[in-house]
């Protein structure tokens, strides 16, 4: 329970930062950044939050189910744009996957190569 309260407190902190400092990011993303920093600097101990966080992260998909059901309400509009919307959404999603995946693969390979050289020098 303590874990859940801490996580909710970081979400509230995210809202506060967004409101007061006009950070153009959603509260949960700000909260995630703050929470990670708090763990890293030992302000929050892993043991306090671990059980709650592991449960929530494990079931992250569950919390999206109502959001997906909510897209139903847009069906009448989407129907009129079905082909364009479906094609551009799927093709563009493939572009994102391919560009990110290939770029990461290339850079990753190079940096692993450098790491090997570096170890060699040592």
């Amino acid at each position: 329970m303590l874990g859940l309260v801490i996580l909710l407190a970081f979400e509230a902190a995210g809202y506060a930062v967004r409101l007061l400092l006009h950070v153009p990011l959603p509260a949960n993303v700000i909260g995630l950044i703050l929470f990670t920093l708090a763990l890293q600097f030992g302000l929050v101990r892993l043991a306090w939050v671990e059980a709650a966080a592991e449960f929530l992260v494990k079931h992250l998909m569950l919390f999206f189910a109502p959001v997906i059901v909510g897209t139903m309400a847009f069906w009448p509009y989407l129907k009129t744009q079905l082909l364009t919307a479906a094609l551009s959404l799927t093709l563009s999603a493939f572009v994102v996957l391919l560009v990110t995946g290939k770029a990461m693969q290339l850079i990753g390979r190079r940096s692993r190569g450098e790491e090997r050289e570096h170890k060699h020098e040592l």
Partner: protein
Amino acid sequence: MNFNDPLFGIVVTGLAYMAGLAVNRKWPAIHPLLVAAGGIIVFLAATGIPYEAYKVGGDWIEVLLGPATIALGVPFYKNMRRLRHSLAPLLASVSAGTAAGMASAACLVWALGGDRTLVPAMMAKSVTTPIAMDIARMLGGKPELAAVFAVITGLFGSVCGPAFLKLCGVRDDVSVAAAVGTAAHGIGTGRLVRESELRGSVSGLAMTIAGIAGSLFAAVLALIGG
């Protein structure tokens, strides 16, 4: 039971999710959310129970999306050494992927002769839903439509992303997770985190970077476009 009671939507969502997990255990190729969300939609349509009645309880489940996203800090923290090493490559590849996604979305809608109002919402589709809404707003589009596209893209990327990447020869954990997190934000991360903590944390980090990069690109575009 009164269908407008939050308990109704909560129980229906919980049962549908458990059914999704059970189906996924038996047939791993079937995405649990496809079964869960699809099952709820079919159930509501078959019984004639209005979406508004379901939403009362659905909203209760959705409240936990905030703390669940923040909880990704735990896998970040546990994989910090590995992540720190990948941070610069992630920044570069996730920004490239996000830019390519926004450009390709705009070009595709235009080339296919789609409705102009689709463009900003489609450009915002790959980032986490609340950021997608902000981006669409910045680009003069409809935030609600952007939210719908973001959710559908997340589901699509979560379902098809790993198989598509395998087909393209991208197989290592970090690259797959970077791509799925960038394309399919939290919904993709939700899938990967069940596979391994490393995949989940890289995907979560990619999702965060994609959200920040996407907002920056949109701010620049809004500035140029006036």
